[in-house]
């Protein structure tokens, strides 16, 4: 390959690493990404001078169409749809990797070496299963596919069988690269496996699934790098793959579950009768009472969950926080790692509403502060504040780290209705004497609270 192109790829790899390093702090993040984007541009421009290229029209048309779609998506997509967009982009990335692999096999097929076909197999399997898996994840997030786990008896055994046949055809292909049937069997099974892998996973486990798909799409790109003998692909793909892997581990830890349990446990599909003991009465509170409480508090901690995202309440929350701060109340936000549908979901929503990141606290930072907090306001979160995870070893979520709002002097829970949350678990927090329930749509409740605080 052309030495100049190789040098450009090397420079691009270095810029990518610097770009990611920028993301370790919000102040340096934009500059870092600018470097990475420069590296990407250089790599693309350099590739256009690749000696093997003879025709340019498909390249120009492809870049143009893709660029326009990408730009349009990023300009008009609302921030609340961030999880959907991310799922789609995993699908696109995986599709690109898979198609390059298929095209490579179509072109050379049987004349490829065994090791080469081995790398190609990884590329195809990861690419295809990530493609369909991400589309299902997108469907679940967008609401086209049912969010609750879809499962049937023997699904896991069926999946295992499918996986075994897929790997079998992969091995056969590596043994004899000219057998196209093995190649296409492997591809088709990988496409099916992606669907079956994500279909039984509940919406609340989406942060883990998104991270895993992130990881797979990166590894698919890295495998493409092995096939094409291109180091910048290996580096960028591996960085992506490991980033996704680290995020999945962090998300699993934040739920005290193993990746296996998330993938094959179909959490939330069974009713956990053991934990379903009613613990007393819920105390309903009025808007005015809460407003007075908030207005005269010294410190208020908001704990947002996916309910804040669905109600699009982040701007209303910001207004309320501003009003309280103007009255001298210290306002903080406690963010659980798995709140929402993807890692960091709540942070992005609050940042969009102009909440400065200096008041966004991680779970471990906010927990010691809660006993000193006058009012903790839970906005559309449930499992991440469920004290059963800490107190009841028999609970299905036992051991999951929570934001301990029940340690605050008083708790207000904003909830749409009296029903149970997504996981179907009873939440003893709602029955505690310190807790007041404020029913209704989160956005209108918060707007009402802001109005009432103004009148105090």
């Amino acid at each position, binding site marked *: 390959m052309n030495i100049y192109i190789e040098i450009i790829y090397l420079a691009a790899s270095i810029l*990518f690493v610097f770009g*990611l390093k920028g*993301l*370790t702090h919000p102040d340096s*993040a*934009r500059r870092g*990404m600018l470097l990475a*984007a420069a590296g990407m541009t250089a*790599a693309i421009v350099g*590739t*256009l001078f690749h000696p*093997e*290229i*003879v*025709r340019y029209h*498909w*390249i120009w*048309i492809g*870049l143009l169409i*893709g660029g326009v779609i990408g730009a349009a998506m*990023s300009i008009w*997509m609302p921030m609340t749809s961030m999880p959907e*967009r991310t799922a789609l*982009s995993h699908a*696109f990335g995986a*599709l*690109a990797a898979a*198609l390059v692999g298929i*095209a490579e096999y*179509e*072109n050379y097929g049987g*004349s490829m*070496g065994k*090791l*080469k076909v081995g*790398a190609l197999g990884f590329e195809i399997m990861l690419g295809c299963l990530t493609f369909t898996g991400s589309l299902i994840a997108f469907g679940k997030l967008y609401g086209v596919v049912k969010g609750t786990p879809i499962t049937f008896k023997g699904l896991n055994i069926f999946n295992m069988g499918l996986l075994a046949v897929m790997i079998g055809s992969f091995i056969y292909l590596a043994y004899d690269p000219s057998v196209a049937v093995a190649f296409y069997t492997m591809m088709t099974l990988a496409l099916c496996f992606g669907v079956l892998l994500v279909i039984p996973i509940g919406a609340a486990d989406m942060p883990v699934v998104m991270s895993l798909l*992130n990881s797979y799409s990166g590894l698919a*790109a890295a495998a493409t790098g*092995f096939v094409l003998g291109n*180091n910048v692909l*290996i*580096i960028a793909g*591996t960085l992506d*793959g490991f*980033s996704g892997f*680290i995020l999945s581990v962090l998300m699993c830890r934040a739920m005290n579950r193993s990746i296996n349990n998330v993938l094959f446990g179909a959490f939330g599909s069974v009713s956990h009768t053991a934990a379903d003991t009613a613990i007393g009465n819920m105390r309903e509170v009025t808007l005015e009472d809460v407003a007075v409480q908030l207005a005269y508090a010294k410190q208020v901690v908001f704990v947002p969950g996916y309910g804040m995202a669905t109600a699009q309440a982040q701007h209303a929350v910001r207004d309320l926080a501003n*009003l309280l*701060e*103007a*009255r001298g109340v210290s306002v903080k936000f406690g*963010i659980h790692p798995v709140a929402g549908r*993807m*890692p*960091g*979901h709540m*942070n*992005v929503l609050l940042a969009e509403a*102009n909440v*400065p990141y200096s008041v966004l606290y*991680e779970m471990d930072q906010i927990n010691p502060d809660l006993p000193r907090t006058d009012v903790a306001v839970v906005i559309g979160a449930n499992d991440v504040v469920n004290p059963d995870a800490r107190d009841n070893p028999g609970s299905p979520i036992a051991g999951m780290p929570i934001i301990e709002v029940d340690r605050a002097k008083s708790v207000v829970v904003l909830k749409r209705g009296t029903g149970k949350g997504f996981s179907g678990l009873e939440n003893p927090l709602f029955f505690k004497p310190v807790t007041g329930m404020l029913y209704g749509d989160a956005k209108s409740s918060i707007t009402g609270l802001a109005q009432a605080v103004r009148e105090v």
Partner: protein
Amino acid sequence: MEKLVFDPRILMASLYVFALAAFLGYQIISRVPPLLHTPLMSATNALSAISVVGAIVMAGRENHHSISTYLGFIAVISASINVVGGFLITDRMLKMFKRDVRVKTADKKGNSK
């Protein structure tokens, strides 16, 4: 075509690159604060869309079967969606993270009390 069979030396070199990139990625990414996990995901996704360079060559070179050209063409589209979209939306998100904007807005709104 020079690359059809994996030269074991090149395979080893590729594995070295993979291992070192994995280690580097682990070191850097475990230092990214949870605050920025969503931008991190969209940023790394944009980076791995570098597979566009493979797609470009596939779409532009002389292929044995024209199907490879068309597959390369679709791959160029889907990868460049991620390149352009990924960087733009990451920047759009990062722009929103501010250390303290509260002071000014609070002055305006605080008058109402």
